[in-house]
């Protein structure tokens, strides 16, 4: 029996960038959605990144899938329906494990996704939306992702968005030695991109961010220089490579702005990498001579070329994930059997006591303390020996054998409804 887990969402596999941009819900809408769906006994988790938006819900009812889908389209618009996919039960569990292990990422094995899933889980926990089975699934998914990272090459061999951007830069520049990099935004992605570019030979790093303190912190870690956000245009004159990672709702680098700096730049090539969703760089910038702009979808094209080379490592990672999913399902099944066992033993004990008391009451003379002890031990031994095999079988139940618990409940006349509610 699979847990009542459902996932509905869209990702870079199913939706183009402009659709994904629209589904990026602001924090307050995310909170509303989670609170609405996580009314006890249900639980909910919302993973929202630039490449995927997925809503995971655990709860009772046969209409769970429909409710989840309706909630997501209600929050983001009905026209998104063609881009949505969904999984239920163990397929949904496997999907979450694969997402956390970065096997479903745009860049196979990229490290950011695990942090993003953890952030989503923390958000759900803060709101009290992930507390029971969903929390256990997440914990198992994180453990699985860690195993994938340590036991396979998929993490080590992975090309992140940042390193894919460096690869692209090498098609434009004859090496990055002596080049100036401008990071617009000072988050985790900017940090990663900066590190990749510096290790590839970039000579100078400029960091522009709306909050100057964050720019200064990142610049210090990259031995670069923070520049006021207001001086972005002046920085564009100096830069050869620009990496944008801000959360700005509208483009920061417009065609007009870039056109103005072309002459002062003496028409040096300008490589713009826009890793932000919504985009920070106006697509029309690409029409300017000597300007090469790449957004996240373009970077995906680049890395798609590298995916085949990592297929072997990914194959091993898939095996690890499958093992971890099986382990989770096994543990869940054991948890599901515990109430059956408890009820079975309680029922047996109840019968034993009742029959023992009736038998003792029918005796012509009361038993001595020693005799009572012997009879007590004998009946207990009979019950234990009778229940030994069923107990062992139920405890050792494997994935996919949860029907055994159902059968035991049926055979011994246990309260199945109560057991399900506990599970």
């Amino acid at each position, binding site marked *: 029996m699979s847990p009542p887990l459902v996932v509905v969402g869209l990702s870079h596999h199913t939706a183009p960038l402009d659709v994904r941009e629209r589904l990026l819900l602001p924090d307050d809408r995310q909170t509303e959605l989670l609170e609405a769906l996580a009314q006890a006994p249900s639980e909910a988790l919302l993973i929202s990144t630039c490449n995927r938006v997925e809503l995971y819900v655990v709860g009772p009812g046969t209409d769970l899938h429909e409710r989840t889908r309706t909630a997501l389209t209600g929050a983001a618009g009905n026209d998104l329906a063609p881009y949505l996919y969904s999984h239920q039960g163990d397929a949904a569990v496997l999907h979450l494990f694969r997402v956390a292990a970065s096997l479903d990422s745009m860049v196979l094995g990229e490290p950011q996704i695990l942090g993003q899933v953890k952030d989503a889980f923390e958000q759900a926990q803060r709101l009290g939306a992930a507390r029971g089975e969903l929390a256990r699934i997440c914990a198992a998914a994180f453990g699985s992702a860690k195993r994938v990272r340590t036991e396979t090459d998929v993490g080590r061999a992975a090309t992140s968005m940042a390193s894919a951007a460096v690869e692209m830069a090498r*098609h*434009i520049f004859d090496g990055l030695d002596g080049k100036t990099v401008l990071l617009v935004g000072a988050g985790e992605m900017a940090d990663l991109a900066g590190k990749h570019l510096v290790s590839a030979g970039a000579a100078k790093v400029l960091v522009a961010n709306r909050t100057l303190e964050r720019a200064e912190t990142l610049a210090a870690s990259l031995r670069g220089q923070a520049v006021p956000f207001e001086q972005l245009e002046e920085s564009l004159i100096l830069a050869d490579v620009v990496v944008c990672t801000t959360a700005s709702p509208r483009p920061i680098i417009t065609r007009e702005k870039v056109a103005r700096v072309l002459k002062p730049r003496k028409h*040096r090539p300008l490589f713009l990498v826009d890793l932000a969703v919504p985009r920070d760089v106006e697509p029309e910038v690409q029409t300017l001579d000597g300007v090469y702009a790449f957004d996240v979808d373009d970077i995906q*094209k680049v890395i798609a070329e590298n995916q085949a080379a990592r297929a072997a490592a990914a194959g091993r990672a898939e095996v690890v994930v499958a093992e971890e999913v099986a382990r989770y399902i096994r543990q869940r099944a054991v948890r599901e059997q515990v109430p059956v066992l408890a009820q079975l033993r309680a029922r047996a004990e109840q019968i034993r006591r009742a029959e023992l008391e009736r038998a003792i009451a029918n005796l012509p003379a009361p038993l001595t303390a020693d005799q009572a002890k012997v009879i007590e031990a004998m009946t207990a031994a009979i019950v234990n020996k009778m229940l030994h095999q069923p107990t062992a079988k139920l405890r050792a139940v494997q994935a996919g054998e949860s029907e055994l618990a159902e059968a035991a409940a049926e055979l011994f006349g246990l309260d199945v409804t109560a057991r399900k509610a506990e599970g």
Partner: protein
Amino acid sequence: MIRTCFTLAFHAYALGALAYLAVLAQGWKGMAWVARGLTAAGWLLHGIGLVLVLSAQRWVPSGFGQVVSLLSFLLVAVFLAVDLRARAALLGAFLSPAAVAVLVPSLRMDVPGPELTEGLRQPLLPVHIGVALAGLAVFGVATAVAGVYLVAERMVKGKRFGPFFKRVPSLELLDDLNRRLVTWGFIALSLTLLTGAWVQSRLRPEARWGPAELAVVVAWIAFGVLLQARIFAGWRGRRVALLTMAGFGVLVVSFVTRYGPWVAR
């Protein structure tokens, strides 16, 4: 001996061109060295043949076949120098077949060529022809580089990242090669004009410049402006690549007008 050298050179170039095309198609790095080796061997044989021919003619090529043979030799020389310096084997896939094609007419050239008249025996004439053909060869390679640049830039702008894309040198390297080649070509073109003016003043002082000479002057002005724009206004990339190709086109017109097989000597 001379014909054997040219025939062997032709076959070596042809095999080198096939090897370069294989590099383009499959990206085999080892094959690039095979291609370079074959082309270099062909070039040496070609050089031996040319020395044997030209040394008997006061170093002045005579007839269309000899001129295109020398042009082909210089084209391969420039290309090999660029390939060895920039490891741009991909260019070979375009230039080697071009060199083979240019060489074809020379396989049927007269050896020795038509006798030079006494008036043509000017000491600066071999220098004039040599720098003119060297300039044309340099601009030919620059044009191939410009062509590859335009294709590569189109792939970058169009986000087409296939296997071919991975084999193309960076845009910056191609642009820098273009800059160097156009600079050397401009120097050769300047020397061509100077020596040409001197030779003409000695041979036919009364003659006015014809379309061939005017085309060279137009190309010289265009490339001069191009270099100025590169240095002072920072022109580069696509615009420069297109102008290089246009300038080379003018030079080809001049060459064909001056040396074409239909031109009466």
